[in-house]
């Protein structure tokens, strides 16, 4: 069994409670990352390196100079290029043994179901509420779990929503937590309020960690729990959403 698995995963195969069985689950899994920006870049790097078998990257945006302090898959030479294409190129070199698919169109009501239906776990690494609700509603409709990540100034949020299994009978959706947000109640994003790149790195990496735990069946993923991390104090505050 283990001989079929690439040597690149050797150090994680050594981990207690991980091993070949968990690695096989990662290799068989399909993860879609929506947004290849501040959260998506670190999440994508670790998911690809860990051996998620199929990774989708959805982002319609192009690289700009103001992205480079936090969107660490891109260089100054990439300015003006599609993020999803550049990210795909980088990750294909990082791990040529996995499949990587890029989507250059905006994720909207019209196309979201067709794209999300091909994946097992969705990483919401978007930067606006409209996209978050679109992803949430498609995940509810298609019965897919999604790993939420979001930033406000020096703080970040992580949660696994819409997940059901034999031990967790009730799926909590984003609308269960924040039902009263309308399209008009847009919140400040990183463009308006600013952000340190390293916080995006921490939260995006936590999203990748939660996806890996969920898929591999290890540890206690943040299912129906909202974690808030404060980068100024290092405090984490976890709220049970059930």
């Amino acid at each position, binding site marked *: 069994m283990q001989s079929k698995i690439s040597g690149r995963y050797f150090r994680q195969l050594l981990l207690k409670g991980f091993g070949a069985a968990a690695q096989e689950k990662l290799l068989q899994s399909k993860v879609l990352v929506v947004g290849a920006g501040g959260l998506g870049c670190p999440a994508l790097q670790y998911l690809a390196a860990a051996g998620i078998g199929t990774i989708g990257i959805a982002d319609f945006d192009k690289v700009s100079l103001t992205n480079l302090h936090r969107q660490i898959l891109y260089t100054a030479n990439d300015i003006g290029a599609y993020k999803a294409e550049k990210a795909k190129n980088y990750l294909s070199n990082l791990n040529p043994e996995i499949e990587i698919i890029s989507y250059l169109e905006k994720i909207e009501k019209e196309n979201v179901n067709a794209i999300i239906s091909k994946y097992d776990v969705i990483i919401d690494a978007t*930067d606006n509420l409209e996209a*978050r609700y679109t992803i949430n509603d498609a995940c509810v409709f298609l019965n897919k779990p999604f790993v939420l990540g979001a930033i406000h100034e020096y703080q970040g949020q992580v949660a696994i929503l819409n997940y059901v299994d034999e031990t967790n009978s009730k799926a909590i959706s984003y609308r269960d937590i924040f039902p009263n947000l309308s399209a008009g109640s847009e919140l400040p994003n990183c463009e308006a309020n600013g952000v340190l790149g390293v916080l995006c790195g921490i939260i995006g990496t936590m999203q990748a960690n939660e996806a890996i735990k969920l898929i591999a069946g290890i540890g206690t993923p943040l299912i129906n729990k909202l974690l808030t991390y404060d980068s100024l104090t290092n405090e984490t*505050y976890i*709220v049970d959403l059930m």
Partner: protein
Amino acid sequence: MQMKTTIRSFGSIADITGSSFTLEDVNNIETLKVKLLDAYPALAEKIFMISIDKKIATNETILPNSTVALLPPFSGG
């Protein structure tokens, strides 16, 4: 004797209230909402989830020594 409840605020709510404060005689969620708006009228414009002792709250009683948290949605990424 008056009961004091500790309240933690996150994200944009903390910009209004500070990251931690106390309110007196807050026995349930409805009283909490009224007293929050009295103390910080700017919260009327804000959307946030309320937790009691790290569990999402609906209309429960707030017991002495409970910690309440106000958690708004974050949007950046």
